[in-house]
């Protein structure tokens, strides 16, 4: 449970969230794309409250990489294009785009036609990150993205994301200092209370 808090995140500000397990890091990150609904209070996005009516369009702008990557049965390609199978967001994704995303996530593009069940834990996580980036989000939420990756790979993926998506705001739950170094704002949760530190100040 999180106690009452105020928080404002400027655009293009990468945020890290840390805290002991069970402190509410996942709850906090899920609040941003409304996969968890706060008991009280309001969340504004670009100076407007998040609309309940067109929640799908809002969620589409906020990509989320869950702690445990959830893949659908099928190939790596099937998983990457899953977000474009929905009626509202139907679009063809070229192989070129898929390959570019794979490279960005340090994923060999020879895996594209492989059954997603045969992937290793790290590959699954990179696939989940790639899938989230493919929808070209405005905000990227990542819940422990480095948990199944070695730190060098995680770092170079992070570097790639920042390089290729300069307008993206990244909100990150992680304890890896190498990733936290890319953030401008740090939130630490302890027994339901948030403490916010801005690196710049």
């Amino acid at each position, binding site marked *: 449970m999180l106690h009452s808090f105020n928080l404002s995140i400027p655009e293009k500000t990468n945020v890290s969230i840390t805290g002991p397990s069970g402190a509410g890091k*996942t709850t906090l990150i899920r609040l941003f794309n409304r*996969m968890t609904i706060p008991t009280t209070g309001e969340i504004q996005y670009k100076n407007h409250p998040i609309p*309940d009516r067109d929640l*799908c369009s809002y969620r*589409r702008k906020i990509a989320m990489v*869950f702690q445990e990557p959830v893949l659908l049965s099928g190939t790596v390609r099937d998983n990457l294009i899953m977000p474009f199978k929905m009626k509202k*967001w139907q679009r063809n994704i070229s192989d070129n785009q898929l390959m570019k995303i794979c490279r960005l996530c340090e994923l060999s593009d020879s895996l594209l036609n492989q059954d997603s069940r045969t992937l290793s834990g790290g590959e699954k996580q990179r696939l989940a990150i790639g899938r989230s980036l493919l929808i070209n989000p405005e905000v990227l939420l990542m819940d422990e993205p480095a948990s199944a990756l070695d730190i060098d790979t995680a770092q170079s993926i992070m570097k790639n994301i920042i390089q290729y998506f300069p307008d993206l705001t990244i909100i990150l739950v992680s304890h890896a200092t190498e990733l936290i170094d890319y953030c401008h704002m740090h939130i630490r949760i302890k027994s339901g209370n948030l403490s916010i530190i801005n690196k710049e100040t």
Partner: protein
Amino acid sequence: MLYYIRSIKFDMKAVIDIPLWRLSLCYGLFFFVFVMAWWKKLDLSRDLFFSIGRMTIQLTLMGFILTEIFQIDSWWLITFIYLAMLFFAVQAIVKRSGISFPHIYRLLFISLLGGAGSVFVFFIFMIINNTPWYDPRYFIPLGGMILGNSMNGSALALERFFDDVHVRRLEIETMISFGATGREAAQSSFRKAFRSALLPMMMSMSGMGLVFLPGMMTGQILGGSSPLVAIKYQIAIMGAILGSLAVTVYMILSLEYHQFFDKYYLIREDIFKLENKQ
């Protein structure tokens, strides 16, 4: 000429009633099974005794009740009896599927009324077209058959959809985080449940006539109808059963879906009794 009769045929035979003493021989068969169960230590003796007893009592009562019902000449009373049957069907479905969530009774009652009920109305007026339409000899057994056969599939669909959404909830959550509506995210579970409801009935339809003769047809033939009339009834009732099943299951799944997701398209954890996530 008073009469001129030309090649008429009359081969309607009266049904042979089974005298009670011969029927009691049948209990010899039950006794035989009973002895076998005891001999091979199947641990079934008690259950067997009760199931034979229940069947005897229930059918005897039904025989008397149906005799009474068939005398009824009142459309509202017959309709009321049908609605009571519908209510019992709802209860049986809930019991068989073994799941529960808020409003499940209301949901099933509406679905059965909209599916089995409306198909039955079509069947009675358009296909049977008997006068009076509420003639209990047709209304009650046919209505019961359509309801009864919609029951199995409904219970199956209800349960499958619930279980599959539960199992796939993380997948569903992921799709919703990508901007899917709840309906889109649950679509593959919806399809799976719908298929599982229709398949057994389709299997039995393709085996019909070759592997077995349906009970209603057997009954009609024993009752003296021509097999050609009996198959017409059978085909008609199969159409009604399948149609009723499809509409009922579609309504159940659509209404059930609304119970599973809240207005934010999030899976309602209270229904699936999930623990709160951190």
